């Protein structure tokens, strides 16, 4: 059993007072808070061994390089990648998707090829493909969903053909919390020879990721949603796929040799990591993963599920509140609308009670259009949240209703 009160002590920000009330932080799907081991690692790096990596021969550079590369090994084991060079550091999930679109997409996709995404994608898994389609004349196809917010898998199967070159879907929906059957999607896409990218931004903190078991070609996520620093993400790619891809950004670090006549590129993973990387945040990512592993990913998932069940029941008891996203398989995200009340007003009045939720379209405008709403309010839970906090949310929402009725 996790000791939640003890875990809360690891997150100094949870002691903040907001608008005169103790902070209740329910915006974890946007970004999680950071535990002391991560904060301390950042300070330690800058205080004791900040140096540019790989090329320096002095001691600090050596220490920084080895901490930076140790994070790569940590992430390799975290997602069970076969090889360490399959782990590319990015600035986040969006950056990883753009890398694949611009490098793999521009090299291997041509006019008439089809890319399949789903209705519940974040804009970051829509727009990069639209840009590619515009440039290359590819066709974007979209897997529909049912009213509960689940993918219509029969429709997906019907879309697959020899024209399908890439399938890029979200593992867990940020707006609804739906867990998609990605293993099945990958298998079916592979059967027609398509490559598959999984957007794991929301999944990585809730679900154990095993890229070899999934057999996906690409998997992307951000560390800041996983108790780690902002501005740091991961692109996993199968070695043979990454090897076939051209570099996407040019600069230092990604080269073997540069002459004005010709430049040869570095090997994986460096050919995709031009310029000085986000060293401190990569280093501290190690501590974030270690923290999660110490608590135990399965224990975290079990506790978050408990919060989800408790929260779903508690919020359902509020008259006039309707849950949006009622998939059978969900992570601890509860989206809802309240009759006659604008989501932004809910957000403002909860904030004045110290409760942080997300309101709006959650960067999923096409999904909101499909659901026929302008937006939702979303409470998303992390391991440090409690049932008492959910009770405060219920009281807060009753207050919202009272004020606006």
């Amino acid at each position, binding site marked *: 059993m996790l000791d939640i009160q003890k875990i809360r002590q690891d997150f100094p920000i949870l002691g903040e007072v907001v608008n005169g009330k103790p902070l209740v932080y329910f915006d974890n799907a946007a970004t999680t808070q950071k535990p002391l081991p991560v904060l301390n690692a950042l300070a330690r790096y800058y205080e004791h061994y900040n140096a540019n990596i790989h090329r320096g021969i002095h001691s600090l550079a050596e220490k920084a390089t080895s901490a930076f590369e140790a994070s790569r090994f940590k992430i390799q084991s975290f997602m069970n990648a076969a090889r360490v060079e399959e782990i590319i550091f990015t600035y986040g999930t969006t950056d990883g998707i753009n890398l694949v679109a611009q490098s793999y997409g521009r090299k291997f996709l041509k006019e008439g090829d089809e890319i399949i995404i789903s209705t519940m994608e974040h804009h970051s898994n829509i727009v990069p493909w639209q840009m590619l389609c515009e440039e290359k004349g590819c066709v974007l196809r979209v897997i529909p969903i049912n009213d509960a917010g689940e993918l219509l898998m029969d429709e997906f199967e019907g879309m697959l053909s020899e024209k399908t070159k890439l399938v890029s879907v979200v593992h867990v929906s940020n707006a609804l919390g739906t867990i998609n059957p990605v293993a099945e999607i990958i298998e079916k896409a592979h059967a027609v020879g398509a490559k598959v990218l999984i957007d794991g931004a929301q999944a990585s903190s809730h679900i154990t990721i095993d890229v070899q078991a999934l057999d996906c070609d690409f998997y992307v996520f951000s560390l800041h949603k996983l108790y780690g620093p902002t501005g740091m993400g991961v692109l996993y790619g199968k070695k043979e796929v990454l090897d076939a891809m051209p570099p996407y950004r040019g600069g230092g670090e990604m080269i073997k040799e540069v002459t004005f006549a010709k430049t040869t590129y570095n090997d994986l993973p460096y050919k995709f990591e031009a310029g000085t990387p986000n060293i401190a945040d990569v280093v501290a990512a190690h501590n974030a993963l270690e923290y999660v592993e110490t608590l135990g990913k399965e224990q975290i998932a079990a506790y978050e599920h408990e919060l989800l069940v408790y929260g779903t029941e508690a919020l359902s008891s509020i008259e006039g509140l309707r849950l949006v996203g009622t998939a059978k398989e969900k992570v601890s995200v509860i989206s809802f609308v309240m009759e006659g009340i*604008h989501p*932004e*007003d809910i957000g403002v009045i909860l904030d*004045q009670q110290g409760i942080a939720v997300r309101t*709006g379209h959650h960067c999923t405008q096409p999904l909101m259009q499909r659901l026929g709403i302008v937006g939702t309010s979303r409470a998303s839970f992390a391991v440090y949240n409690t049932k008492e906090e959910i009770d405060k949310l219920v009281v807060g929402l009753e207050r919202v209703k009272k*004020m606006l009725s």
Partner: protein
Amino acid sequence: MTINEKQDELIEDFDLFDEQLDKTQYIIDLGKKLPPIDEAYKTDDNLIRGCQSKVWLHCEIRDNLVHFEADSEPTAQISKGLVSLLIKVLSDEKPEDIAAAQLYFIEKIGMSNIITSRRAGGLASMIARMKEFAQSQIVPN
């Protein structure tokens, strides 16, 4: 009452409340009292850009004064309340006074946290639209 007198009165009114939530409640209640505008004025041209929720502003001249009417989509009650404050302060004033007005009440009523960064843009464009109209109505001497 001049624009500044109206601002000062609002500041005094809001000073009566200690709690943010009570101030918000007051804004919501003021919004509810805002007279509805003619459906004919809810045009695309009258929509204020940059608002999260839909807000329409109609401007006209009545007896040499600038008269404003505005409304928001019915569910956006806080927006409506904020809109009603602007109407209260700026409507039925001389064009030159509106164009020159310094709006200090928004900060002074202590509602800056209600005007989130997302809402600030909408509010700013509403003020800009009001001043622009007023400016266009100033009769040169």
